[in-house]
């Protein structure tokens, strides 16, 4: 997308969050029981299992017919089409109508030009448990009309049918915490062992998001009839309450040992309930925060996580990428298709979580590509030069160097050595701002994994991201530019999602609409793409070489590699 088109998209997204009119909340009257009751009610637990996985009471997949053909289990789970929240979805021209408690058990009114007809017979009367059962089994709705072709006709036992109906009666019946008539409460998680400047880069950008949204909400509250407000109203299709909602951002600062983080997070969540976590930055693995979010059912959008936890099954945390592991995988993908590689690469790995993660990413992709495992040479920072000398005795042709602050010294040493490898691959994510000052002598044979958009394709700062940083990139540095763009992207995703929830503020619905979101092209990434259940928005990386000098001039040596 061009810079201009990208700007338009961003502006539209922000603008649409700003028009007033009515203020409705998602407080929906529970019909039977809140979702929390599933833990104690076996019928609701079975209903939830049927709804989400298509597995029946016997533990076997439930069967159904679609256009007369047999289908079963996960392929026909209700949540596939109607989504976990039950608020439905549209995929192309295929529409899965909402089936949450507040719609299924209410009549569907006739619409004329999009406006509900208040008098006369409804298009579909409210379902009763009995008519719903008939619809599930035979595909005939409460008005006696056939449901769409794609809707499975289920073969359910009486117990399963009763459980599913009970679950549907409870589905998304309660609004989630953190949303009020005029506000959406958010939080961001930062740990005190993150450098203060990094933390500030994240918070500065997130506060900018809040200020922008709230400024516009204010403006449109006082001037609801100006052109932008009318445009927003059209885009929001009646769900205009989001336009005048203000955002609040709490900072959940984590202190001390990581083992104490879950308790700290729980205390924050109790004291100031929030709808979602946005952005965030901690030192080391994001795992404790992700585990908490999973337990709480708390959406977390695009934390700056160098060590995400995407391998652990989960649904509530969307990462921008797989962190530094993705760079290791990218190098493997490059070498798997590389004609110059005539002998297995050597891997030198410094101590620490980050180099280990790069190696994990490399090893996994390398072995998926059918290659035998490569045992890394483990190096320590103490007496490094001697260790490098010893490792060079093996005359590696291609070296994968998983190091951070030591990289410059190692490259300088390699440059002067007769056994210098022909090519050295490094992960940019381990280098921080030092990337730009790596020795120029090494650059002709240095290959860098680059999980970002190529610099010449970056939109100009004037396109928006400039004001999300405390100072221009030349002053804030490469790393903090990425932190700010992560917050910016999180803001875009959040804004789009808040519009798309259409006034149905449940956390599950927020994640549902995030998963159904179209591709985005914010600064920093060639493309962020989404999908139901997808955990990583950006999946690839480039392999680049760096030109001389301390400004970021890169030459791509590969296409955007995802496999």
């Amino acid at each position, binding site marked *: 997308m061009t810079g201009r088109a990208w700007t338009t998209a961003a502006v539209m997204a922000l603008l649409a969050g700003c028009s007033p009119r009515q203020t409705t909340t998602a407080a929906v009257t529970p019909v039977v029981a809140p979702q929390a009751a599933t833990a104690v009610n076996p019928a609701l637990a079975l209903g939830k299992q049927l709804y989400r996985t298509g597995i029946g009471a016997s533990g076997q997949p439930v069967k159904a017919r679609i256009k007369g053909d047999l289908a079963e289990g996960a392929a026909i789970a209700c949540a596939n*089409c109607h989504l976990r929240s039950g608020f439905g979805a549209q995929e192309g021209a295929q529409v899965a109508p909402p089936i949450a408690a507040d719609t299924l058990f209410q009549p569907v009114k006739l619409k004329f030009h999009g406006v509900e007809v208040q008098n006369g017979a409804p298009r579909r009367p409210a379902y009763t448990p009995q008519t719903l059962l008939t619809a599930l089994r035979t595909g005939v709705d409460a008005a006696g009309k056939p449901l*769409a072709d794609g809707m499975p006709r289920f073969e359910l036992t009486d117990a399963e049918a009763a459980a599913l109906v009970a679950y549907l009666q409870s589905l998304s019946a309660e609004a989630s915490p953190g949303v009020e008539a005029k506000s959406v409460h958010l939080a961001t998680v930062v740990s005190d062992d993150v450098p203060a400047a990094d933390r500030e880069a994240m918070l500065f950008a997130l506060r900018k998001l809040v200020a922008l949204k709230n400024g516009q909400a204010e403006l449109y509250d006082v001037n609801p009839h100006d052109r932008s407000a009318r445009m927003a109203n*059209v885009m929001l299709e009646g769900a205009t309450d989001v336009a005048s909602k203000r955002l609040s951002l709490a900072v959940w600062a984590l202190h001390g040992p990581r083992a104490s983080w879950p308790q700290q997070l729980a205390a924050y969540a109790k004291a100031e309930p929030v709808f979602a976590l946005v952005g965030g930055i901690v030192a080391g693995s994001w795992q404790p925060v992700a585990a908490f979010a999973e337990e709480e059912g708390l959406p977390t959008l695009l934390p700056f996580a160098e060590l995400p936890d995407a391998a652990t099954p989960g649904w509530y945390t969307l990462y921008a990428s797989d962190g530094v592991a993705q760079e290791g995988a990218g190098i493997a993908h490059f070498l798997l298709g590389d004609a110059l590689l005539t002998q297995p690469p050597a891997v030198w790995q410094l101590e620490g979580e980050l180099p280990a993660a790069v190696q994990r990413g490399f090893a996994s992709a390398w072995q998926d590509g059918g290659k035998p495992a490569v045992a890394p040479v483990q190096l320590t920072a103490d007496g490094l030069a001697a260790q490098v000398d010893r490792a060079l005795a093996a005359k590696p042709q291609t070296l994968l160097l998983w190091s951070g602050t030591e990289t410059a010294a190692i490259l300088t040493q390699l440059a002067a050595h007769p056994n210098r490898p022909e090519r050295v691959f490094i992960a940019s994510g381990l280098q921080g701002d030092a990337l730009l000052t790596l020795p120029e002598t090494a650059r002709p044979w240095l290959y860098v994994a680059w999980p970002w958009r190529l610099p010449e394709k970056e939109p100009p700062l004037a396109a928006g991201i400039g004001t999300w940083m405390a100072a221009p990139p030349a002053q804030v540095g490469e790393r903090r530019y990425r932190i700010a763009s992560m917050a910016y992207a999180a803001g875009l995703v959040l804004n789009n999602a808040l519009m798309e929830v259409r006034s149905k503020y449940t956390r599950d619905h927020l994640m549902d609409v995030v998963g159904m979101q179209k591709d985005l092209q914010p600064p920093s990434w060639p493309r962020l*793409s989404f999908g139901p259940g*997808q955990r990583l928005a950006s999946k690839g990386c480039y392999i680049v070489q760096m030109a001389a000098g301390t400004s970021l001039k890169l030459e791509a040596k590969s296409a955007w590699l995802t496999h």
Partner: protein
Amino acid sequence: MAAKTLWRSLTMTATLCAALLLPLPARAAPARSVSPVTLPNVTLVNQDGQRVQLPTLVDPAKPALVQFVFTTCQAICPVLATSFANLQKSLGKAGEQTTLLSVSLDPDNDTPKIGRAWLKRFHAHGNWQFLTGSLADVTQVTKAFQAFTEDKMTHAPLTFLWSPHEKAWVRLSGFVSNAELLAEYRQAVAP
């Protein structure tokens, strides 16, 4: 774009969306047409990580089927894939030999490994392949089949069948039942 035009197009989009939010009426049969398709000479990657040239996968003397899918799609693609699975099953030995191609609309996410798992989920065997590649190459393929949409989230249920009999690609738009697909298949092989 002039403000008025923008306003009008937004209004139209909104009306269209409102109209689309109504459930679709049940349809008896998929819409059938014959498409002029020239397979682009792109190299894609199959579920085993092998690089394959698309045109070499289709033998003009034999029927072949193509669907555009992505593995995390939950509403349309599992139903499409089920129709491939049912066809394979119904055709027995001939089903194993028939070329079935599931081409990914989400190649960034759908690695060969993920494609392999997806095929397994639908008990795929024989000559049913999952194809991924670069987004640019996949886009060439969707454009050739007139199946391109701006975003994977707006894709439609489509099945394409190469008919040696008609020497053309038959385009089936909508969900297709096993009986319908079998009938099309038989028509494609038997004059």
